[in-house]
């Protein structure tokens, strides 16, 4: 992302030290990476949040991750706290990839707030786009049955073991079949973005549920 400034001491070490071995430099770099986000005005312009909301969001974010970035393991831990009965790590992995738009392995405040802006304040089109992006694991523009199955299994994993009715092996697969029956209009085995958006816009339930989280912040 443009404008990221990484504070590292390694530059100063380079200037001062004569012959520090490489491993020490690497260690120093790792331990002092800190990330400062862009200015408040820029973020205000790029997202649909007000200044106050950005302040609140950043305070919470920085409190949880003092270094300013979230790596995948921390992310999984945080997400797992909301689903104590099941295993949320797979779904958290997919979520992480969906939020980490520049794919650098860590989630900065900009990624975080961009994603939230789409999800909470975006148009229905944008939200559906985001959901499509989440399901499309390899980001090739098509949702295949395998990708959907992975996502479905991840969602069902979050339910855990103690459910009613008892979760069976083939439940995710059957759910995927239902999904494809609904979405895949030309029956070519993959769902494209247009099929997806079309179908969702025609479905009342989905349209309604897209709006329930609008007052989250």
């Amino acid at each position, binding site marked *: 992302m443009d404008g990221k400034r990484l504070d590292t001491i390694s530059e100063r070490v380079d200037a001062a030290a004569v012959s520090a071995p490489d491993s020490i430099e690497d260690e120093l770099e790792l331990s002092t990476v800190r990330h400062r986000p862009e200015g408040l005005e820029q973020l205000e312009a790029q997202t649909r949040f007000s200044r106050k909301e950005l302040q609140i969001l950043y305070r*919470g974010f920085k409190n949880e991750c003092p270094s300013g970035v979230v790596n995948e393991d921390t992310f999984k831990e945080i997400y797992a706290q909301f689903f104590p009965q099941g295993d949320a790590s797979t779904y958290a992995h997919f*979520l992480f990839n969906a939020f980490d738009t520049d794919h650098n392995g860590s989630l900065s405040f900009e990624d975080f707030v961009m994603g939230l802006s789409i999800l909470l304040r975006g148009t229905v089109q944008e939200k559906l786009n985001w959901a499509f992006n989440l*399901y499309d694991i390899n980001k090739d523009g098509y949702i295949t049955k395998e990708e959907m199955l992975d996502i479905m299994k991840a969602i069902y994993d979050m339910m855990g073991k103690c459910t*009613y009715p008892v979760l*069976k092996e083939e439940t995710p697969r059957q*759910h995927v079949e239902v999904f494809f029956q609904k979405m895949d209009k030309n029956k070519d085995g993959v769902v494209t973005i247009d099929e997806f958006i079309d179908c969702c816009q025609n479905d009342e339930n989905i349209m309604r549920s897209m709006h329930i989280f609008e007052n989250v*912040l």
Partner: protein
Amino acid sequence: MATGTAAWLPFARAAAIGWMPVASCPMPLAPRDNSKKKDELIMLNVSGRRFQTWRTTLDRYPDTLLGSSEKDFFYNEEAKEYFFDRDPDVFRSILNFYRTGKLHYPRQECISAYDEELTFFGIIPEIIGDCCYEEYKDRKRENLERLQDDQEDNKDMKLPNMTIRETMWRAFENPHTSTMALVFYYVTGFFIAISVITNVVETVPCGATPHHKNMPCGERYTVAFFCMDTACVMIFTVEYLLRLFAAPSRYRFMRSVMSIIDVVAILPYYIGLVMSNNEDVSGAFVTLRVFRVFRIFKFSRHSQGLRILGYTLKSCASELGFLLFSLTMAIIIFATVMFYAEKGSSSSKFTSIPASFWYTIVTMTTLGYGDMVPKTIAGKIFGSICSLSGVLVIALPVPVIVSNFSRIYHQNQRADKRRAQKVQKTRQARIRIAKSGSANAFLASKHHGLLNELLELTGTEEDEQKLIRNTSLLESQHHHLLHCLEKTTAHEFVDEHMFEQNCLEEALQSYPSRSPSVSSQGSCTICCCGSRRHPDPRVPRGPLQELSALHIQSNHRQPANLHLRSNLNLRAEDGSRVNCKGGQVTTAIISLPSPPSLAPHREASPSKGIAPNWCEVRS
């Protein structure tokens, strides 16, 4: 709500949009944030020192004093602040807990003062972070011991209704409980001393008399010594038998070290009695007398320090083992070297390698008797190396043993370590319970939400007020999130107990024709307005006597399918009609016929989505 992730809840809820296209049912409504308070700074005045923080920071932990409405009791209207008449230094740690999610224990604080503050502010001490928890527990344990010591001084009153056996055992274990016990204690101590001194004096040569040559006193005054010995053994036997009688667990007593020492101390006497002056075995008999020296170990009951020494040696077994092992290695090496070095010299005392062991040991421990000395130059060189290395090898493990001893001497409690293990387990258990409380809270709130709805519908005011539960906004938002997940997957969370019951029933029923879960059929025709499904309609569940009101939407796919839960037990009233808002539901108490008779019923219906134990009722 789990600790410290309140900041991420909006994120988790937003991410739930990813489930929406996948779900087939509509989602429940989100709880409204009615308070709509702007995030404001709160002023906390603790004994004059002012702290400020955001309101949302405090709201993270709604079950503590500062996070709940309990702090309103401390609100000072004129100054518009919350005033607490407590210690400001400890308050720092407590406020930091809200800020960072980690509770630290400041080392310079008194443990009981800190505990009191934690209790006042409603924070459980188990949340203390790992960095400070050891210290906290150690201090707490010391404090507890101090209290116990104080109490023990008052505890020496006679407890009523103790049997003779118990009194005796108590007297044996704590000599200062009664005068009798004290007398007994000193008498046995005296006789142990007598016995040891007798054994020693027995061997001293007593001086020549006209008709006896110089012989040890034992042989001169045989009768006297024999009487003394008998008396001592008599006392020891009586003591042993009394202890055996009084012991709460005889088997355990007999296995204990002290009792073995007692037995070993008195056995030689009896064996000697049994064996007469038979010449053959008298040699063995004499050897047995050596064991009389073990009587000196009986002193360990009288001396705490001796017991600690014994315990130290036992606990340093690994260091001692290492010492022994390294010494053995060095001895063998140097003995071999010395033997081969001295082989050349004539009249060398180093006749074999085992013979050289003696030289090596004496040299390495820097004794240097001088009965064996190397004569060759090579021998002398290696001999000096040997003595130098001996100093090193012995000096290394000894400080470890010494420090061990001093540590144990100061701590002085082995039982406390065992207690600490248990405490660790209970700590983990308590944290686990607090965390799983969030899972159970969701299930519990579902019950309450359901009941609330029912009572709204039936409209009895008092019942409604009884049941309205005070969940915080955070909790209700979290529960809404979990509810959305349930809707997406069309499965419900149940607790473990219920889950196992369900599994058992499924195993028992094992119908071949049992249809798979409804969600997989695709014709998800059941939509609930926030109500919970009754787990098994056939079997009435005792604890879950609640009404499930089904709001049935006419499904656009299969209009003929109206499913109704059967066998409902109303909590408030029996058999009344309930009008769901805008719904077409009649709840009735229907006892299901046995499943086989449902089979034809099921075949008759065209839909695939009916589980065999549901029957259709049209409203």
